[in-house]
Each structure stands twice: as C-alpha cells, then as structure tokens.
C-alpha cells in the first residue's frame, strides 16, 4: 500500500522535524533516500534545490514531489496530508496549553538540549549534500580532478558572498545555475 507508506513516512518527517526551516532536511533524507529508496541522493539534492526556488516549506515541497513520483496526484495529497497532520494535532494542543506550561523547567531544558542536536543534524545532511554537489557521491573521490577544484572554488566564493554581503540566497542559487550552464558550454567548447 504505497499511499499508507507515503502518509506514514511523511507523518514521521512532520513529527520529527523540530525547529523549522532546514530541520526537515535530515528527516526527509532519512525516510525518502535511506529507508524507502524512493529517491536517489542526487534526486533528493534536486528536490532541495527546487524547493529553494518555489514557494512553501521544504517538507511540504518534498512531500508533494515524492508523492507525485510514487503515487501521482493522490500520492502527493496523501504525503502532504501526512506531513501536516502532526503539526495540526500538536500545535492545536500547544495552543490550548501554552499559557499554562510555557515556563515549565523541564520543557525549557528539553528545548535547550534539542537545539544544538537539531543544528548538528542539519549540518550532517548539509555535508552529505555538499559531497553530492561537489563530487557526485556520498564519499570523497580517490582523485580530485579539475572539475572538482572548480566546484570547490565556486562553493567557497558562494559561502563568502553569503557571509560577507548577506545577499538573498535566491540570487546565489540562480547565479550558481547560470554558472553551471556557462561551465557546460565552455567545457564543451574547450574539450575539457
């Protein structure tokens, strides 16, 4: 039953991505790439890339994309419903209890412990994506070629521009796409 599996997988993504934004990244990778094998790692990287250029949270975008791939429009709807169901239940409960428990020491302690772990999980997913972006695989290649060095230099430049000039990430992504196309035509012409 692919629809049940889609619902259940994205239910877990919704339930376990704490902290918003990129927090869903490791959970999606875990469910979709590692556990179910619905997407290859490079397809997953593509979904993340497409998510950055389209409206909506990454988790919803990934639900729709994977759902479409595995079960058409109905699959997309089921996966997306799975993804938001935990939010609906938990956030409504929190809305009721917020005033009562917001200063509870245990809750604050748990959040204090979770925050660094969430950052670490995002970093881990980020490094995996980085290896795919630079070398096309999950591990370092035995030989670093000319193309790899160009990729590494580009990466360093993008990070520097983001850190120093605080530009909108959308420009970096669009620009990197344009550079990718330019490199393709150039390397074709030069026979690299």
């Amino acid at each position, binding site marked *: 039953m692919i629809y049940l599996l889609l619902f259940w997988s994205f239910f877990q993504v919704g*339930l*376990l*991505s*704490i902290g*918003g*934004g*990129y927090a869903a*990244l490791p959970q999606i990778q875990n469910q979709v790439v590692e556990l179910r094998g619905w997407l290859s790692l490079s397809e997953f*990287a*593509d979904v993340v*890339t*497409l998510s950055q250029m*389209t*409206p*909506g*949270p990454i*988790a*919803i975008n990934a639900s729709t994309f994977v759902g*479409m791939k595995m079960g058409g429009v109905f699959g997309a709807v089921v996966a997306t419903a799975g*993804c*938001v169901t935990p*939010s*609906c239940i938990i*956030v*409504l409960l*929190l*809305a009721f209890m*917020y005033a009562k428990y917001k200063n509870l020491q*245990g809750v*604050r*302690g*748990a*959040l*204090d*412990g*979770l925050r*660094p*772990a969430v950052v670490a*999980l*995002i*970093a881990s997913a980020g*490094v995996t*994506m*980085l290896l795919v*972006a630079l070398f096309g695989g999950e591990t370092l290649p035995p030989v670093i070629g000319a193309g790899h060095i160009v*990729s590494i230099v*580009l*990466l360093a430049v*993008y*990070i520097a521009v*983001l*850190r120093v000039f605080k530009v909108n*990430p959308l420009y970096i992504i669009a*620009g*990197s796409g344009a*550079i*990718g*196309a330019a*490199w*393709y035509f150039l390397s074709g012409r030069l026979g690299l």
Partner: protein
Amino acid sequence: MTIKKNLKFYFKLFASTFTISAFTFGGGYVIVPLMRKKFVEKLKWIDEKEMLDFVAIGQSAPGPIAVNTSILVGHRLAGVAGALVTVFGTVLPPLIVLSAVFLLYEEFKSNAVVNAVMAGMRIGVAAVIIDAVITMAKDVLKGGKVLPLLLMAAAFAAAFFFKVNLIIILGASALVGIAVTFYRLKRGNGAAS
C-alpha cells in the same frame, strides 16, 4: 475585537494565507513577517504580542513553521475550523507548484543543459545550507557554554559517521537537556538555564 464569521470571513482567511504562502520562497521564517503584516497591520485581527507568541510556539513545535504559525492564527480567529482553513490555504500553493515542477522535472531531467544548471545549483544550495548552519551554530553556541558544543559534536558524529537513528539522537539530547536543567536546579543555580 469581534469579527463576523460568515462565508466572506472564511474566504478572506483562506485567500490571505493562500497568497502569503504562494509568495514565501524558500520556506521557513520568511512567512512570519508576511503574516504579521497581513494579520496584525492590515486586517488588525491579531495583536503584535500574540503574533510573537504564535511564532515562538510555531518554532518549538514539530513541523514547518509556516504551517504551525498558520494553524495558530486560524485557531485564534475561528477555532478548529479556522485552523483547517488556514492549513489548506498554506499547503495548497506548494502542492500545486511542486506537482507542476515534478512533471517538468521528469520531462527535462535527461536534458544535458538542464542537468548542468541543476549541478551548478546544487553547489549554490550547499553553500546556502552551510551559511544557515554557521548562523544557527553561532546562535546556539552564543555565551561560550561547553554543553551545547559537546551535544552538537556528539549529535553530528552520531548522525554523519555512525548513522544512528535520528529519533534516538533527538530523544537523547532532549533527555540530556532535561537532566542538566534539573541537576542545576538541585544545586540551586537554576536561574541560569
């Protein structure tokens, strides 16, 4: 303030969240200022302080912040029915757009130029994620405390090198946070958490 809960109200609630969601590129926090502008400043349905509380809850609950915050806004304005309306409004734009994107992706993924563009963009996206991780890590490590640094290093090693189940990592770090908080409380300097 009282708002008439007629069909027009629900439509406006849906249309507002739909439009906001359709223009939230990249997801995450981008939606917060847009929602504030619409519901606090323009419609005056929610006051400033409430909105901040909603963002705080939306952040600490599991799931996308955009979805969580819209549930809270909908619930505040019209109960569970309102929450359902805002969730649909928030989820529909990415559902429609990504379905279309998927069809285009399947169509074009064997195209060499498209592949070159995607390969280039992967590097850009990796840079964007690394930039976000640096910013988040700085924020978490602010104040030079040792525990968050240790937790972060341990969680990274567990996830990246040892492929430990993510639920175990999150559960363990929450337990460490709780244990440390209660240990500090017992020692009598619980004021600094």
